[in-house]
C-alpha cells in the first residue's frame, strides 16, 4: 500500500509541475502582455516598459518562471487590481463556498446513486430497471440552468421556503450556520440531482456486471441470502468504477459550476471565474485555472487511493 501511495503521489506531483508550467506559459502568452491589459491598448511603449519592469516582466523568462514558482510555493498568487484584494485571499474565500457546495452535491449524488444503482442492477432487464433507465436519461438531458431556474421558481417564488441565492451579501454580516445551509440547499440539489443521472446509471450497470460474476454464485452456494451477497460481496466490487468516474469528473464539476453558480448568484469559484473573465482579471483567472487543475489531480489521486483500499489487486505488494 505504501508503495502505491508513493508512486501515485509522484505521478500527481509530476502532473502538477506540468500544469503550473502550462498556466505560466498561457499567462505570458497574452497578446502584448499583461501591461496592455492593465494600462489599456493606447498605453505608450515607455509606460508599458516601466510597468513591465515594476511587475518583473522585463526579466528573462527562466527567471520569471523561477520567481513564479517561488511565489507559488509561498502561496502568493498575485494581486487583483480590479477587486483590490490579494488573489490568494480572494480565491480562498470563494473556494470555501465551492467546496461546501460540491462536497454536499457529491455526497448527495453518491448516496442516491448507490441506492438507485443497486435497484437498477438487481432488477436489470425488468421493468423497475427500465423505468429507472428512462428517468436517468431524461434527467441527464436537462440543462443545469433550466433545473436551477425551475427550483428557484418553485421553492423560492411559489413556496417561498428557500432563499433564491445571493449568499454574498449575507456573508458580510457573518450569518449563522443555519442561514448559510439554507442558502446551500437549492444549489446542492441542482448539482447533486444532475450528477445522479450519470453516476447511478454507471453504478447500476456495474452492479449488474458484478452480479453476473462467478463469485456471486459461490457466495449463494454458501447459503447466504441474496441481500447478504449484495451488500457483503457485490457492493465493494461494484464501487470501484464509480470511484474512478468520480475522480475523473472533478474538472467537469468545476467547469460546470460556472452555470449553476451564476443562476444562484452563488459566490463560488465558477462565479468568480465568470466575473474575472468578463473583466480580464488575469491573476485571478490563472489562479482559478491552477486551482481547478490542482483539484483535478488531487481528485484522481484520491480516487486511486480509495480504489486501492477497495481492491487489493490495485495495491503494490
Amino acid at each position: 500500500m505504501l508503495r502505491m501511495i508513493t508512486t501515485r503521489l509522484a505521478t500527481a506531483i509530476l502532473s502538477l509541475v506540468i500544469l503550473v508550467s502550462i498556466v505560466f506559459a498561457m499567462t505570458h502568452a497574452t497578446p502584448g502582455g499583461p501591461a496592455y491589459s492593465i494600462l489599456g491598448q493606447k498605453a505608450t511603449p515607455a509606460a508599458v516598459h516601466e510597468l513591465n519592469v515594476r511587475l518583473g516582466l522585463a526579466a528573462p523568462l527562466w527567471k520569471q518562471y523561477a520567481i513564479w514558482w517561488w511565489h507559488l510555493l509561498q502561496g502568493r498568487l498575485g494581486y487583483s487590481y480590479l477587486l483590490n484584494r490579494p488573489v490568494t485571499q480572494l480565491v480562498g474565500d470563494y473556494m470555501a463556498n465551492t467546496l461546501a457546495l460540491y462536497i454536499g452535491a457529491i455526497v448527495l449524488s453518491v448516496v442516491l446513486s448507490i441506492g438507485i444503482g443497486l435497484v437498477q442492477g438487481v432488477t436489470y432487464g425488468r421493468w423497475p430497471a427500465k423505468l429507472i433507465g428512462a428517468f436517468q436519461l431524461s434527467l441527464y438531458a436537462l440543462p443545469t440552468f433550466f433545473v436551477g431556474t425551475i427550483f428557484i421558481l418553485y421553492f423560492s417564488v411559489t413556496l417561498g421556503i428557500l432563499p433564491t441565492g445571493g449568499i454574498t451579501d449575507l456573508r458580510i454580516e457573518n450569518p449563522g450556520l443555519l442561514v448559510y445551509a439554507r442558502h446551500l440547499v437549492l444549489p446542492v440539489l441542482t448539482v447533486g440531482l444532475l450528477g445522479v443521472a450519470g453516476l447511478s446509471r454507471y453504478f447500476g450497470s456495474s452492479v449488474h456486471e458484478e452480479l453476473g460474476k462467478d463469485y456471486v454464485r459461490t457466495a449463494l452456494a454458501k447459503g447466504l441470502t441474496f441481500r447478504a451477497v449484495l451488500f457483503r460481496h457485490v457492493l465493494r466490487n461494484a464501487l470501484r468504477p464509480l470511484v474512478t468516474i468520480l475522480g475523473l469528473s472533478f474538472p467537469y464539476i468545476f467547469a460546470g459550476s460556472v452555470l449553476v453558480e451564476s443562476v444562484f448568484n452563488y459566490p463560488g469559484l465558477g462565479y468568480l471565474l465568470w466575473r474575472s473573465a468578463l473583466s480580464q482579471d488575469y491573476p485571478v483567472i490563472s489562479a482559478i485555472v491552477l486551482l481547478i487543475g490542482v483539484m483535478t489531480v488531487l481528485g484522481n489521486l484520491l480516487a486511486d487511493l480509495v480504489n486501492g483500499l477497495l481492491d487489493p489487486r490495485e495495491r503494490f505488494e
Partner: protein
Amino acid sequence: MSAVLTLDNLSVALKRGRGKPVPILDDVNLTVAAGEMTALVGESGSGKTVASLGIIRLLPRGAKIAGRVQLGDTDLTRLNDAEMRRVRGRDIGMVFQNPLSALNPTTRVGNQIAEVYRLHTGESDRAARARALDLLGEVGIPNPADRLDDYPHQFSGGMRQRVMIAMALACSPKLLIADEPTTGLDLLVARQILALLTRLRREHRMGVLFITHDLSIVEEHADQVHVLYAGRSVEWGRARDFFDQPRHPYSQALLGAIPRLGQTRLTSIQGNLPDPETRPPGCRFAPRCAFREAACETAYPAPDTTGGTVFACRRGREITQADTLDAVTESPPPRARTVDGTALKVDRLAVDYERTATSFLRGIVGRKDRLRALEDISFTLKHGECLGIVGQSGSGKSTLGRAVLQMIPYHGGVVFEGESFGAMKHRRRRLARRRIQVVFQDPRESLNPRMRIGDIVAEPLKLSGISGQRKRWTQAAALLDRVGLSERMLPMFPGSLSGGQAQRIAIARALATNPGIIVLDEPTSSLDVSTQALLLNLLKDLACQDGLSYMLISHDIAAVSYMADKVAVLNGGRLVEFGPAGDVLAHPRNDYTKELIAASPHFRPRAAQGGRGGADEMPVYATRTAQHETAQTKEYNP
C-alpha cells in the same frame, strides 16, 4: 454404501429469452454414495453444469425443475427458499471451475472461508478464523497461518482451488459437488487436486459428485461414472465396468478420442451436438452414430444392461469398442513428408522478463528487477517435424514460443531456414516473420469479434500485398476448405462459432501466409475431448501434406505424444530433456519428465496400468510443485 444423493428423474428447463422454457436436462437418475465419487461426464452443452446447479437450486430465473433431488432423507425440490439456504454450504459444498473468478477478489481468503462456517454454525469470529486456519492446512496449503489474510490473486491456480475446496469443506458437508474443478489447471496440479478430493472424501465419508468433460482424469478416482449426451444419460454404472467395457457408441468414441501412447489415429465423432431446441426425438446421438437403425431415430431406447454398465442404446449389447473405433476412425493420409533441411535452429536462447522492482527504493526511481524466464535453450527442428514442448505452467514454454515468433526480446540465436534473425535486414526479417505463424489457446478470445471470418482469415494476405477483398476471400475460401469448414462462413462473425470451429479459423489464418512453422500454444486445452481429437487429426494431416513444421506447446503430454516427433521438456526455464519423442516418452531419463508422464494416466499403455492405485497423493513431488507454484504467483503478480 448408503446414498448421500439420489437424483430421481431430474429434468431442468431453462428460459431462453421470451417464450417457453427449453428442456436442457431430461430424466437423469443418479446416485452418489457416502465416501464415494460419482463422475458426471459430458461435453459442453450436455447439461452437466445445469444438473449441478439444479441440485442446489441456483438456476437462473424462470428455470423449471421436475423430478426429485433426494439428499439423505430430504427432497430438496420440496424445500422453501430459507430451508434451501440452510442446505447450501452446510450439507452441500460446491467447488467451481476457475477459482480465480469464483472467489471474491476483494476479500481475504480466510474471511471467505470463515464466512460460511459462521453462517451455519453461529460460532464467533475467532472460532471461525481458527476453523479457516485448520481447513487451509487440511487442504495442503503451505504455511496456512501466513496465507490466511492473503487475497485470492496472491495464490496460484492450484492453490486457489485448494482454498475453494477448504471453503466447501468448512461445515463438513455430506456432499461435495465439484464442477470442472481441474479444468484450466495443468496436469500435475489437476492430479494433486483429485488426489486431495479422494483423501478428503474417504476421511470425511463425504460423497463427491465430480463434473467433468474429461474422462481420462477420472479413470483412477471415480467409483461411478455417468455419461450425459445432449441432456440425457447415455451410459452409467461402476467406473471399473465402464472403463473395461463401455457399451454406448458415444462412450466408446469418447474414450477413443483420448490420446494414448502409440496411437496412430484418434477417434473423431463427425457432426455437432444438437441444439437444445432441435434435439432429435429418438436417441439423441443417432444422427452422429455409425450404428444407427431406423428405430433409433424415432424412440428413445430403453436402458439395458448385460451385467456391467447400464446403457441407453438399442445395439449396445453387440457393438464393441473395436467396432466403434473401426467405424469412426478414418485412416490417416499417406505420409508424403520431406524430412530434409532444417526449418529452425535455436541456439543458446535466453529470455529475461522485467517486473516491478521488489525493493522500495528501486521502485521509486522506476528500476525494474530482471527475471530469467528461459536459459540456455538449444534445439533444431526439421521440415515437416513436430516438436512438442512440455512443462508445467510457468516453465517458460509459452515464452519460448514467443521468442521464436520474435514477439519478445531474447539473447542467443534463432535461425530460420538457414538465416539468423539477428543477422537479417529489416525488410528480410519482416518477410521471415510472416512465415512463422501462431495459434493461441483460447480461440474465441484470439479472434476479433467485430471482423468477418473472411477478413480474419485473409488479413495476413492483405499484409503480403494481395489487394481486393474478392481476391482475398477466394483464397480465404480455399483455406477454410483445407481446415474442413464451409466457405459459407466467410461473411459470418466469430461470435456464433463453437470452440472447435473457432480454432479451425485460427489455423486457417495461420496457414494463409504459407508458413514454414506454426507455433501451437496450447491449441486444444480449452476444447472438449472429441473436438480436440478432430483438431489434432486435422493438424497432423496438414503437416503431412506440405512439410509444415510445428512447435506444439502443451502441458498435456498425451496430446504431445500423439503429435510430436521430438519432445523438449522444460522445467523452470531450462531444457531438462530433449530428443526423439519415442525415446523421451518411453525411456525418460530426467526425474521431472518421469513425473509429467506419471501424471498423465492415459499415457501409459493400458495393460501396464495395473490396479487402480493412483488415489494416493504423490508425496515428494507434490510439495515441491506446491512451493514452486507459490513462488511463481508471488513473482508474477506485483
